[in-house]
């Protein structure tokens, strides 16, 4: 573990306070995508940012926002580096981030179990994900009414990181931040 200076911690907090461009209720720190900040002297800073998905188009906006915020706080030179490893996982979203997602109407991701492809059987599985068919995983709760009875409408939704579901109790459709 590299030791961070008090200045770097302060800058990390600043960079992490930037709202996510697509989910503005979350900060980048809550999303878990700001990995590290390194200060070289007092006016040159390097920020490590990791993308959620490789092709996530929000990364460029995130970089610009981080640069802007740090510059506003007197840092003259800001470099944002995109780092791929270790790969981001939805487990990196903080508890506070999960709470905010739910409040915003998005079902937060569940904890990721084993990696690898998930077997999904067709047929009588309308209200179950393949991974919950064996009953070992918690259900996805409706962010509006809290019901565990929800069905998958589409495995892909408004952004690469979400799936579209519908609540069978209150009938509201909602986005689910899918586990990665």
């Amino acid at each position, binding site marked *: 573990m590299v030791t961070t200076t008090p200045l770097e911690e302060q800058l990390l907090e600043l960079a992490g306070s930037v709202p996510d461009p697509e989910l503005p209720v979350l900060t980048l720190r809550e999303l878990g995508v700001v990995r590290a900040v390194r200060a070289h002297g007092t006016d040159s800073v390097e920020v490590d940012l990791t*993308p959620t*998905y490789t*092709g996530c188009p929000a990364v460029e906006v995130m970089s610009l926002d981080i640069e802007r915020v740090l510059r506003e706080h007197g840092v003259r030179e800001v470099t944002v580096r995109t*780092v791929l490893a270790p790969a981001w996982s939805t487990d990196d979203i903080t508890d506070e981030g999960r709470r905010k997602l739910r409040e915003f109407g998005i079902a937060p991701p569940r904890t990721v179990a084993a990696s690898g492809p998930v077997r999904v059987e*067709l047929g009588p599985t309308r209200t179950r994900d393949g991974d919950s068919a064996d009953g070992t995983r918690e259900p996805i709760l409706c962010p509006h009414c809290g019901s565990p009875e929800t069905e998958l*409408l589409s*495995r*892909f939704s408004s952004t690469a990181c979400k799936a579209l579901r519908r609540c069978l109790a209150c009938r509201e459709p909602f986005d689910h931040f899918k586990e990665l």
Partner: protein
Amino acid sequence: MTTTPAADTVPTAAALALGDDALVLSHRLGEWAGHAPVLEEEVALANIALDLLGQARVLLSMAGDEDELAFLREERAFRNLQLVEQPGGDFAHTIARQLYFSVYQHLLHDRLASGDGPFAPLAGKAVKEAAYHRDHAEQWTLRLGDGTDESHARMQRAVDALWRFTGEMFQPVEGIDGVDWPALERDWLGVIEDVLGRATLTVPDGPRTGAWRAGAGRQGLHTEPFGRMLAEMQHLHRSHPGATW
């Protein structure tokens, strides 16, 4: 801005091969925008295309300037598999192409991610994305294969038609070390046989090398539809060099 290993440690040929696979398939999937059978599927195919485009950008940046490589190379300079350049055809053809490629990509990136080569960081992300693409393709294969007589017939036609392009996937790629290609092929065959079996489809038994020597795409020899695809993909950039939004 993307972090890449120092240029002299990157096997450029391998970065091009993997990057071109992702770029070309991404473009082919993007062709469904506005034409997919249902809105959800349009979103799904666009999302998969976006994942692949992200992978392509990282890989091509390892080999050089991503825009120059994507938009200014001639057909013969592309190193992608012939499988990924095949036209979408009917929806069954697109799904068969997705099934064959996503299973291959998932198995390959899983191996690359566990090594310590230059592709390990990207593979660690791509393997998760490919797992989801593979699941999407498997579900559609089951649904179409074990669906109506019409969907079954079309899906069988599609898996048969694209079968000859699959042998090329297991030709060793120069610069990728530590991958047991024959084992990769056995694993791939095992998955494909399992999925096609569950989808009540027959595993094609024809040769998997086609009329060309296997590995032709990796050597820059492409099928006829690829030229037209490239013309469309590169037209804007070539007509307006340096244009920005």
